[in-house]
């Protein structure tokens, strides 16, 4: 029994890996082509304000932009398969080293936000589902739709206005640490973890205070879909035979909630995975507003500046991490569900 289960899991991982490859290739191919067929020429941007045509063509050759598109793509894939993401067209910093430096900031933001959002969203969604159409349900439905509808960046701006400009409660939206704080040595790249490792409490509190507002904004908005989904999942479970049976058995509300939550864990986890990946991308806006200098801000800039190497690196990172997240989540669900 145990062996069959383990072999099933291993097979699952293999299949997932196998299926992921074409999807990732598809994403990379899609972005690769789309940013190039647009007709925008990045070379002038790279060459800078003083550039003559000789300089332009030299850069074009250097970046292989004079080659056919498909050839460019194949070259790129070949390089990527060797773990080389190329160098940024703006300044020549290796894309991979930038990703290593910037991704932890984004992960920090996204995981904290999703975590907080789940803490907010799941209980509220559950309560709604247990009393569907009651006042609480109507109110949360409205609120979650409002959260759904609110532009992230706008909420961020308004939060800055209130908490930084008016109340001076939040620190200036400037980076991940205060200027007067000694930056911890980079170990993991996550400021929070690095501070903890170093025991640098001063920096830790500064990092937390810089993260608080963006995380709060992000989590509030991320909670909306979680509420909605939890409600939908729970509604189905609450209407299920086994919850009806548990009710008929006179189980306490707490026990019934426990049963429902346990049964919702699988679909909820799957949804949280989805939420994680979508937040990874949406983080760009929050990072931009709060100058958090994460991966998203970097990618956003690259898109605006036409730095294709960075755009590709960004897209690839997002795609790969989405895949990884899905895989881990699916694996967790697999282990969680007795039926598998």
């Amino acid at each position, binding site marked *: 029994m145990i062996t069959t289960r383990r072999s099933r899991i291993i097979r699952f991982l293999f299949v997932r890996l196998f299926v992921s490859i074409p999807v990732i290739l598809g994403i990379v191919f899609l972005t690769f082509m789309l940013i190039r067929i647009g007709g925008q020429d990045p070379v002038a941007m790279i060459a800078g*304000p003083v550039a*003559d045509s000789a300089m332009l063509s030299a850069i074009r050759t250097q970046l292989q932009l004079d080659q056919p598109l498909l050839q460019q793509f194949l070259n790129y894939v070949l390089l990527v398969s060797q773990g080389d993401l190329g160098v940024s067209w*703006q300044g020549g910093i290796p894309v991979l080293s930038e990703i290593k*430096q*910037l991704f932890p900031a984004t992960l920090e933001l996204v995981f904290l936000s999703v975590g*907080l959002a789940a803490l907010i969203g799941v209980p509220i969604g559950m309560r709604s589902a247990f009393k569907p159409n009651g006042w609480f349900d109507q109110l949360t439905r409205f609120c979650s739709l409002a959260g759904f509808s609110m532009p992230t960046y706008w909420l961020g701006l308004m939060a800055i206005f209130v908490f930084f400009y008016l109340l*001076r409660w939040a620190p200036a939206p*400037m980076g991940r640490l205060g*200027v007067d704080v000694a930056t911890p040595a980079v170990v993991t790249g996550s400021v929070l973890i690095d501070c903890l490792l170093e025991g640098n409490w001063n920096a830790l509190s500064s990092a937390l205070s810089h993260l608080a507002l963006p995380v709060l904004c992000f989590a509030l908005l991320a909670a909306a879909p979680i509420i909605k989904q939890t409600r939908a999942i729970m509604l189905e479970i609450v209407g299920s035979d086994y919850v009806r049976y548990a009710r008929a058995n006179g189980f306490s509300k707490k026990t019934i909630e426990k049963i429902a939550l346990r049964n919702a864990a699988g679909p909820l986890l799957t949804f949280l995975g989805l939420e994680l990946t979508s937040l990874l991308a949406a983080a760009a806006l929050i990072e931009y507003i709060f100058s958090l200098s994460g991966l998203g801000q970097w990618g956003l800039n690259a898109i605006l500046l036409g730095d294709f190497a960075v755009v590709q690196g960004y897209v690839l990172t997002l795609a790969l991490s989405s895949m990884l997240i899905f895989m881990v989540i699916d694996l967790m669900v697999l282990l969680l569900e007795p039926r598998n």
Partner: protein
Amino acid sequence: MMKKQGSVLTLILIVALNIFPEVWAQEKTLVIAMNSTPKGVDPDIWVPGQIEATVNLYEGLTSYGTRVGSNGKLEVDPGKIQPHLAESWTVSPDGKKYLFKLKHGIRSPFGNELTAQDIVWTYEKSALQKRTGQFMASVGRIEKVEAASKYEVRFQLSDANRIFLGALTLHLPAIFDSVEAKKHASPDDPYAAKWLSLNSAGFGPYHLQSLQSGQQAVFVVNSNYFFKKPYYTKIIWREVPSPATRVALIRTGQVQYAEQIPFQQLTVLRTDPAVKVESVPGFGGATVRMNPRYQPFDKVKVRQAVAYATDYAAISEAVFLGQGTRSRSMLNSPIAGAVNAYKYETDYNKAKQLLTEVGYPNGVDVTLEYSTNWWWEEPLVLQMQASLAKAGIRVTPKKIPSTEMLARRTINVWTVPFLTHLTSSFVPDPSYNMFLTAHCKGSSNVNANCDAAMDKLIDASAIEREEKRWLSLIEQAQNLQADSATFIETFLPGTHEVFAACMKGYLWRPHNRLVWKDLNCSS
């Protein structure tokens, strides 16, 4: 469940609301709020933030002298070029050979002394990279650089020219500590371009200590710096992409300098006791340019009509908030030889009359394209739209991305008929400036401004060594440009640097970048 969630929320809130007033305690550290961290620090490769950093890392063989200006403040005198890293120089009679003697004892942070070899290596590197450094070398018509002895270096020029010494004041081609740089070279990369793009090895006052892309860069003073020791020993360069945030930071005293502050904010900042605004007119002019290869701008009278239909007073008020300086030529003071060539004043009737003369009695429809390279573009375009309408020139404003603008306005592409542009350069030399912007081969010629007579005047001025004839050539060229009216000269937006109130010592340089070694905040 609900309880747990509540307590976590409270915890987060407590952290969020726990304010840490980031009081600036450490001394002699300068914190600056910049648009972006340097994307690289190799002066040969132009990338965002690079110039702002490298003017502080590398210095030239020459430098500009200073004088006391009309307002009693010290200012740069572009007419006076003095030795800097060089001790002295001699020129051959034909003006094509220069021999520089280097000062002894100039050392990089790595302890290596500056020798003629470093300079030769520098020019070799730029020649190989074929980027901005080589461009600047070509501007000075430098043909060959060789070491005459350990402390002597010889420059061979293709033509005698006036810009050469001015170009040597610049930070590029950067004079590298070649001894250190060579340690990081490889057969693939003989000039250590990879290493130099993320590390500094110069003889300037500062060097790069750490660079966290997108977050901050830290520069520390070169302890071996040959000249007067800078007041600030450490520069913390924070990336703050939003100009508004930069304003907030300077106002709350969390940084001592903030770059690229929007004009509207300046008026407020001037009244803020915590902030000091230093304003210099500079010589860069906000222009609107017409490409004569497109209708209706192929007709000079249409272009002149546009010049007459521009409401300069309104632009001054609404766009530059009364803080700009009227531009009167494609060259402006302090560039030598600048004259009042551009004589157009607002006159709608004259504009209408000119339009009628060339067959546009009912006016014309044009699209004015602009981007966001400079903050004033959009308001200027809107003002142009309003005032040109009064002469029957109906303007459709169109904002396009910077990438598109750069690509389409490039020399020999020239597909933007009507656009906004800033006339500017690093070197305040008249011939060079005219060449860049108005010569058919100039790399800042964005509107196909190709006129054989103009090219001839500019070319002649560049090699003319007799002062009077030189000035006359420059004046002719300016007048010719003003008459052809392909440039609508509006205002010099000026350079407005925003500092903490205590900041002293600011000195404007022709490269228009902040030089940290000038600054001090001592009481």
